[in-house]
């Protein structure tokens, strides 16, 4: 039995499955983004370019590893590893193959929120450890940005929890199934705010301020090469998957089987939809400036998020 659980953790629906899905979504994102711009996107690496993220990953693994002299060697080693493992570990708390996640406990939603905060902290460390000006600016921007979206995000994410009277993602998924309803239908405002905050969390346009290529090269990642960069990219892809899974679970019913369709398939369809919305939206905007972004978040998003909380309270109370 233990081997079965280990297998679950490592292969399906655990690490391996998550990594494959993460790579697939990177491809979906690049492809859709390219199509919006009237291009093909990756085309020749694997059928329709589907192996592109894998090729990128393998290539980076095979590249020379450069450690800048000025940087903190220990941190420089630890940061990429943490950046890749944290979202992977958090994914175990997402219901993927069944409405019940591999690891589910009351309060895992809080842990997930904490993980998002941690990701930003790691980014900050990454920029700081590489002792380069661009990286430092990138990481400071990243931290500033986090301060502005974390609070509205936390506010709206507890709304489904209040409605379902459960602080566990699995619990919220099951509550939606039991009541034959969707979070999105009950809390459309919450969904919208979550999407905006998560765009910021993922550092996508219009909030890709910490990575603004034309301003600060590649932001906090500027100095990383080889396997470190590969792990960053993997961690990034996993983060996208995590975010998509979170939206799918809290608002779209998550991994519930529908008639004959297994839960996993529903999960994949829903997360893919979320990823596609993200990549479509990021094609439509110009990048904001950090001060504009922060003031916008505080001025508009926070009140809306608060409004959503009040609405949910009223709904639950009645």
């Amino acid at each position, binding site marked *: 039995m233990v081997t079965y659980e280990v297998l679950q953790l490592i292969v399906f629906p655990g690490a391996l499955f998550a990594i494959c899905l993460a790579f697939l979504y990177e491809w979906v994102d690049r492809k859709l983004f390219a199509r919006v711009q009237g291009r093909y996107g990756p085309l020749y690496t694997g059928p329709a370019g589907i192996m592109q993220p894998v090729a990128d990953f393998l290539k980076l693994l095979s590249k020379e590893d450069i450690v800048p002299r000025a940087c903190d060697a220990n941190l420089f080693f630890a940061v990429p590893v943490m950046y890749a493992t944290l979202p992977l570990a958090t994914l175990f708390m997402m219901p993927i193959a069944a409405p019940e996640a591999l690891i589910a406990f009351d309060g895992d939603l809080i842990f997930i929120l904490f993980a998002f905060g941690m990701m930003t902290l790691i980014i900050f460390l990454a920029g700081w450890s590489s002792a380069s000006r661009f990286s430092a600016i990138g990481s*400071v921007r990243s931290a500033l940005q986090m301060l502005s979206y974390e609070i509205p995000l936390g506010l709206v994410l507890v709304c489904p929890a209040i409605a379902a009277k459960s602080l566990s993602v699995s619990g919220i998924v099951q509550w939606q199934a039991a009541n034959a309803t969707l979070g999105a239908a009950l809390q459309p405002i919450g969904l919208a705010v979550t999407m905006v905050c998560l765009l910021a969390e993922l550092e996508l346009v219009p909030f890709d301020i910490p990575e603004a290529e034309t301003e600060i090269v590649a932001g906090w990642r500027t100095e990383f090469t080889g396997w470190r960069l590969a792990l960053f990219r993997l961690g990034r892809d996993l983060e996208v998957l995590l975010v998509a899974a979170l939206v799918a679970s809290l608002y779209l019913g998550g991994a519930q089987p529908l008639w004959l369709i297994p839960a996993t398939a529903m999960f994949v369809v829903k997360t893919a939809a979320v990823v596609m919305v993200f990549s479509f939206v990021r094609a439509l905007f110009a*990048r904001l400036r950090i*001060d504009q972004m922060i003031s916008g978040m505080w001025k508009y998003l926070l009140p809306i998020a608060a409004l959503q909380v009040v609405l949910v309270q009223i709904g639950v109370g009645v």
Partner: protein
Amino acid sequence: MGYASTVKMPFGPQHPALKEPEHFLFELDGDTVVGVTPRIGYVHRGIEKALELSTYGHGLYLAERICGICTVAHTCCYTQAIEELMGIEVPPRAKYIRTIMSELERLHSHSLWVGLVAHEAGFDTLFMYAWRDREAILSLFQEITGGRVLHAINTLGGVRRDISPELADKIRCTMEYFEGRVKDYRRIIRTEPTFLKRTRDVGVLKPSDAAKLDAVGPTLRGSGIKEDVRRDDPYIAYDEMPFNVISSDGCDVFARTEVRVEEMMESIGIIRYALDRMPAGVFRVRAPRNAPAGECVSRVEAPRGEDMHFARSDGTAKPERYKVRAPTLANIPALCRMLVGIHVADIPIILAGIDPCFSCMDRMVVVRGGRASGTLQSKRDV
């Protein structure tokens, strides 16, 4: 780190926001720029010397390579100067063809620029669309001249290739398509809130400063001053063309964008007019090898502003002195003025705002700020 009292931040020579190698040293106070030291000269190739050492015919190809974006402007300016020295009159048909080429170049250059400014603002989709549509102009170039970017069409005494009636129809047809696209850009840049947020009130250049610091081209016209060599000092066939000089009172990056987009509409009008009224006849006359002694100043409105060449001949087959002053250099003092007191994140978009093309600027510039002291003169007024 990075946020101490004043830090120095280098920008370039290899930097994704600059497709060309230039170096700016910014002095930052927190997130605000308090000083700028441009350090140019990375693209200095020594063209002026080379021009003086090559024959008039060979020099044409060097003039063309002062810059790959306004090649027509530079070759127009060059041929105009040398033709004046040689005392040859270009046939009217050649003048019309040069006019059409100049305006096509303005279209391609401005749409390239719309794409770039969008790119600097992180608006990649608009960048892709603008560059996709620009390809229509490049294929026209290719059909007319045989080259997409360097056209080698202007020559001493006229142009090397004619525009046939079929080609003229093709140009009209492309103009039809392009007009629609330009209207679309105009709508997008005026309504996209994130883009407006990044360009409105950014990089302000007051009209009095623009005039005093001698800004040129859309940078000047974006500050509400209507000056355009095409109208004020008409060359080739511009004295026969009806068009408006566009200006905008915004004085910011958005105003400069607007000026360029509106100019594209005017250019389309000029091309149509010129195609309809193209005089018949030869399009090239023979140019002599040598030019009698003399000197002349030749001016052209390049897409980025006034371009000036000065030529002096001594009766031989090579110019005695050839001097080029391209638009970007003229805009540098104004640029430095705009860059002081702004937010770091706005640097790329302001730089892009003047449409800096350093390859022509460095052709001559040797302004290199020294380590501590050297800044451009404009710093003095700040």
